[in-house]
Every structure is written in structure tokens, then in C-alpha cells.
């Protein structure tokens, strides 16, 4: 089945209708602006056939979807300081200064939504913000419906030389509980029947959305799924250097040792079922999700499927000591997406959007050097960006 992605220029951007409790601001690329408390980043998308751009009843990855090129919707929210099990971490996008090199969004026109949370608790506030953000991302792309696209890409996996190695992407999605959840067709990853194989185009077409607000740099916001560099690379290489065998979604943050082991083995089994000889395993967030990745790496290798793992490092910049939260001997091929503990030089923005104080109470305009950790997606572990670390 083919899916077409039609690209339209940014000047078709429509300013969204006012939404109660949301401040909307359009930030031009390269502005001297720091955006704080960023929850998610979404590419404006709409479907000419009227189906939802971020479907909850599936399927995505069919027909045609329109995108606005060079535009991103950023949602910002400072949750009320109520008692709750999991806490969002600071998340920054700098449109200027040294931090701008850590994000793809600094070169885009941003529609920044700053939510003023009402009552109802963090779960309801978050659900409302996510729903509104996706709706705005759809609304601002509406101008594409009466316009001619600059480009139409077709995503279809034709037959490929059987002698090429079959390669799959094994994508980890977080589900640790409220505020640390990624969604598959609107369903929390932990309830979405994972691991399972999906069509790669589904992932590019809004099937996965992000409600995971752990360490900002290690987050995969919705935009990173819509524009997923790994999936696009595998499409590009299909029939050239490899056969793209498909995508397996699996959950990160399984909650018991037995569940972690079981999930790892089942993910390896699904990769085997779609014929993968090799998989790139991606990661979301940190801590015990890294254990999930390592166990999955081991399970795949034991099943005869070769692996490359994509991970961020978490080491003290002044240390030459080990650098990963977890590691197994089978993880002998690792891509580093950078060290989240390294500091980014201080920068004084002219304006702050999202909230004047960082979550730790520091004034966002005079925050001094900020660790990579706090920059949205900077060391994301799907390989979306080019940041890496090396031994010097």
C-alpha cells in the first residue's frame, strides 16, 4: 500500500483560532527567543480526504497527507505543583545562541502554544494539552488543502534483491505512567499490544504521538516520529544496500524483571517473524528504559539477529569513567547520540516564551550554562540529529 506525503511551503501557515486558556505566538526562525517548559513538538499535517491527521482509530500510512515544511507547533505547559508520582523535567528550545544548534526547530517558524492549566489534575491537564496541540497542528495546515504541493513523496516498499540483508527498526516507546507515556493511535504504549510490527508509513503518518516529559534531551517528541530519520533512511536504502523488513514497536519501562525479559524476547521474536536479519534498536528516555534496550539487544543477538543500538551517554564531563546506565556484552555496536551531561554555553535570550522561571527556579533569561539534558530532543535516541560524543 502506498502512502504519499505532500510538502507545502511554510507561508501557507494559518494562524490558529483562539483557544481558551492557551496563548498562541508565532516565532520566526532564528529569533532571539528561548522557549521553556516545552512538552511536545508537532509538524502541521492534514489529510485532504478529511480523515484525522493523528488518528486514534487507524490506520495511518495510507492515501495522502499534507505537511507544512519548516513549521513546528510547540506546546508549553508548567504543570501545577500538585503531588504526583512522576514529574516533567525542564525542556528548552533555543531559537538563537549555542542551544540553537541542538534542535532542528530553531530554523523553523514555530507556533508556540503556552497553556494555562486549569483544574482537574495533571492527567486531565496533559490529555487536554495533547489533544489541543494535535488539533492546532492540523488546523494550521488547513491552507494546504487549496494549494499545489512543492513536492510529493511516495512511501511504498517494492520488491528488493533477496541477496540484500533484511533490516528492521525496533522502536522503543515509553510508558512509565502519566506524563511519561508515548501513544500508539492515542493508546498508551503499555496498553497498545506491544511488541508488534507496524507498517513503517504508519509511524511517519501520525500513528505515534508523544506525552513523555522525562529528560528533555532523551525525549522523542511527535515531530521526530513524523519526520523519522531512521525510517526515512531505511526507505531510501531499500533495494540499494538493504531490504527494509519493517518496524517493530516495543514498550520501554516494563515494570518487572520478568516483564522486561519477556518483552525483550517477544520483540526479538516479532523481528524474526518479519524476517529481519539485523535491527536498529532505538531508545526513549533514560534509566531503566536502557535496561529494556540492553535486554532486547541480547535477546535479538541470541535469536541470531544482529543489532545496532542507539543510545545517549550520561557521563560527568570531567570523568573518564563508564558512560552508560546499563550494558550487555552483546551490545558491541552502539551509536552515541551525545552526552547529556555536557554543558551548553550561557546565552541571554531577548525573550522567553513558556515561562520565565525554569522548573528549578532559575530565571530562564539568565540561566547560565545549561546541560544538554534540558534541550528538547538534543540527544534523542532515534538518531534524528547528528549530535554524538567521542573520546578525546
Amino acid at each position: 500500500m502506498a502512502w504519499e506525503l505532500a510538502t507545502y511551503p511554510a507561508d501557507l501557515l494559518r494562524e490558529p483560532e483562539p483557544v481558551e486558556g492557551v496563548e498562541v505566538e508565532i516565532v520566526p526562525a532564528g529569533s532571539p527567543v528561548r522557549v521553556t517548559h516545552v512538552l511536545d513538538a508537532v509538524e502541521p499535517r492534514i489529510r485532504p480526504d478529511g480523515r484525522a491527521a493523528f488518528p486514534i482509530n487507524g490506520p495511518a500510512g495510507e492515501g495522502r497527507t499534507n505537511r507544512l515544511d519548516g513549521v513546528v507547533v510547540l506546546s508549553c505547559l508548567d504543570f501545577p505543583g500538585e503531588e504526583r508520582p512522576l514529574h516533567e523535567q525542564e525542556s528548552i528550545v533555543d531559537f538563537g545562541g549555542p542551544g540553537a544548534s541542538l534542535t532542528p526547530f530553531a530554523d523553523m517558524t514555530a507556533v508556540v502554544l503556552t497553556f494555562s492549566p486549569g483544574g482537574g489534575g495533571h492527567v486531565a491537564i496533559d490529555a487536554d494539552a495533547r489533544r489541543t496541540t494535535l488539533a492546532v497542528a492540523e488546523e494550521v495546515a488547513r491552507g494546504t488543502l487549496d494549494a499545489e504541493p512543492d513536492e510529493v513523496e511516495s512511501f511504498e516498499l517494492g520488491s528488493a534483491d533477496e541477496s540484500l540483508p533484511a533490516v528492521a527498526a525496533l522502536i522503543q516507546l515509553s510508558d512509565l505512567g502519566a506524563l511519561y507515556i508515548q501513544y500508539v493511535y492515542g493508546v498508551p504504549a503499555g496498553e497498545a499490544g506491544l511488541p508488534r510490527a507496524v507498517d513503517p508509513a504508519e509511524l511517519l503518518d501520525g500513528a505515534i504521538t508523544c506525552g513523555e516529559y522525562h529528560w528533555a534531551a532523551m525525549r522523542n517528541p511527535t515531530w521526530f516520529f513524523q519526520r523519522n530519520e531512521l525510517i526515512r533512511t531505511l526507505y531510501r536504502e531499500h533495494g540499494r544496500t538493504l531490504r527494509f523488513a519493517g518496524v517493530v514497536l516495543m514498550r520501554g519501562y516494563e515494570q518487572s524483571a520478568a516483564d522486561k525479559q519477556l518483552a525483550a524476547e517477544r520483540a526479538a521474536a516479532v523481528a524474526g517473524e518479519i524476517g529481519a536479519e539485523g535491527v536498529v534498536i532505538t531508545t526513549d528516555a533514560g534509566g531503566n528504559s536502557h535496561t529494556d534496550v540492553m535486554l532486547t539487544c541480547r535477546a535479538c543477538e541470541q535469536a541470531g539477529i544482529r543489532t545496532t543500538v542507539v543510545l545517549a551517554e550520561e557521563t560527568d564531563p570531567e570523568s573518564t569513567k563508564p558512560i552508560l546506565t546499563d550494558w550487555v556484552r552483546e551490545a558491541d555496536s552502539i551509536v552515541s547520540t551525545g552526552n547529556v551531561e555536557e554543558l551548553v554555553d550561557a546565552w541571554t535570550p531577548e525573550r522567553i516564551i513558556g515561562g520565565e522561571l525554569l522548573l528549578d527556579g532559575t530565571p530562564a533569561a539568565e540561566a547560565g550554562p545549561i546541560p544538554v539534558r534540558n534541550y528538547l530532543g538534543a540527544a534523542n535516541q532515534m538518531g534524528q540529529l547528528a549530535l554524538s560524543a567521542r573520546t578525546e
Partner: protein
Amino acid sequence: MKAVHYLNQFFAGMGGEEQAETPPTRLDGAVGPGRGLQAELEGVEIVATLACGDDYFAEHEDEALAVLLEMLAEIAPDVLVAGPAFGSGRYGYACARLAASAAGRGIPAVAAMHEENPGVSEAGSAYVVPTAVNVAGMRDALPRLGALAAALASGRELGSAQEEGYFVRGFRRNYVAEETGAERAVELLLSKLAGETRTEVGGDMDRVEPPPPVADLSSALVALVTEAGCVPQGNPDHLQSVRAQGWFRYDLGGADTLASGHYESVHGGFDVTLANEDPNRLVPLDTVRGLERAGRVGRVHESLYTTTGNGTPVVLATKFGEEIAGELRDSGVQAVLLSGT
């Protein structure tokens, strides 16, 4: 820009082995190999040479460093250059230690020596340029040493060890690769499938081999240790819920159980609701006391060790572990029940 050059007594022209006890001495301008080095230092002047006997440094390291650093502080150079020391172990060590100390005080520093010189691993965050094993390599060494020193003095951000020609120091530094992580991952995987395994993160992780099993648990002193953020109710010592800066020791006072309302978890990385209804499920004191009464566990150590394992840099977590393990060992603890979350 100003440079200070460090030499041993021999290269500073003060004498051979018989002068190896010479204490730190400040000389004006470039001396000995410093003259050749000066020719390679574009835009940088060697304003002083510091010299010290190799034996003196080895035998009085703290005093020697203190005096040399004081001299450096007075001059406030833009860069410190040490050596080349070639294969000389004592000289290389002195060069490396001084360079490391200077770098630690914010003075850019570079030394030069042979790859097998023990000083190479003592230079901390200072740079070390490779040289031949003996003085015959001076002509090759000075241009490379000079180029790196001039770059450091100018404040230019250095490239990788490979690009700039210094020994790998072991620090992980971020850089922007030419390809995205995704492209590199596909490339690494295809390479591995073709039989050549490569990695961007070396597989030399710190693996702790488990000690042999406890021979007789019924006579062992057993301690409870946790990273579950479990603390007395109210968190009197303000243990952090994330990125803990330390660990705490709490006296169990002979308690049989970690009662709800007396203990709580402040861990910020998981939902503590159920844990706080019964803290024994984080630190199973109730069960271990039962085993103690049944004679299956010798004795429960009366100190609970706790921290929060949530976003803690590995270097800090390693330090906590070493400190706690040291106390447990000194207390005669033979077994630990370590509950993680």
C-alpha cells in the same frame, strides 16, 4: 600571549643526575629546548622557564607542585608547555603532574613524551603530545608541541585527539557528526552484518564480578541497602528525589518493620503510592527480621543505607557505592540485600 616552559634540571642546563635534587627554579625566557620551541610558537612568547630536579620532584611532589604553581600564578601565562620528556619516566611524570595541576587551575597546559612514558596517564585534563623515545626525536616533537601550545594559548577550541595529534585523554566530548545518528546506525548495522563490528561507545564498561556466595547465611551479618529513596517520614536530611547528591545511613533501632507513616520513599522516578502504603516492599525489613528470628539469617545490620537512584551520574553513583561498601566492610557485614527500583 605568554607561555611558561617547564624543563628538568638536565634540559635546563643545570647539570645531570648529580643535580637531580635541584628544587624548583625560575629562569628568564626560553632555555635549552625552549629556544627551538620558541621558533614554533607563533604569536606566543616564552617569558619564563621553570626547572626542577627529577629526584626532587619525585621525592617532594607536593612541595614542588606548590612552589611551581605559585610561580605560574605570578606569571599568569596563556599556556604552560612541559618537556618534551621523551621516555624519561621521572621527568615525564613531573611534566604530566604539573600540566595536570595547571589545567585544573584553568591554565591551558600541554606536555610531550613517549607513549610508554608513565606520565601519559597522569596528565588529567592537560594535553600530551607524542614524541620518540629519546632526545633524537626533538626535531620532530617541537613543531607539534609548539602548534598545539599556540592553539591552546589562542583559546581556539581543539578538535579531536586524532585531528590535533595529542594522546586520547579519555574524556567524552560532544561533537556534531557529519551524518545523523540514524544514518550512522544503519551504516554500523550493515557493517556488522557484513562481518565488521564497529561501535561509537567502547565496550569496556565497569563490570563488577560477583563475589563467591555467602557460605553460611545463618551466621552472617546482613545489611539492607537501597536506591529506592526510602527515608524516615518527612525526609529529615532532604534526600533528593532525583539526581541525588549523596546517601544516608539510618539506624533501624531494632524495628521489626518499616511502618507506613514512619518511612516513605521520595524517589521521583516511579509511582511511590503503593510503596508508601508499605515501605517494606521497598526495603523488606519485615521479611528479613522473620528470617533472623527463624535463624536463617544471622543478624540484621542495624543501619539502613539509602539513596535515590534516579538520573544520578554514573561517576557519583560509583562514589556512593564505594563509600557505602567501605562502611559495610568495616562493620563486618557479609551480605547485602540491595533493593533497586
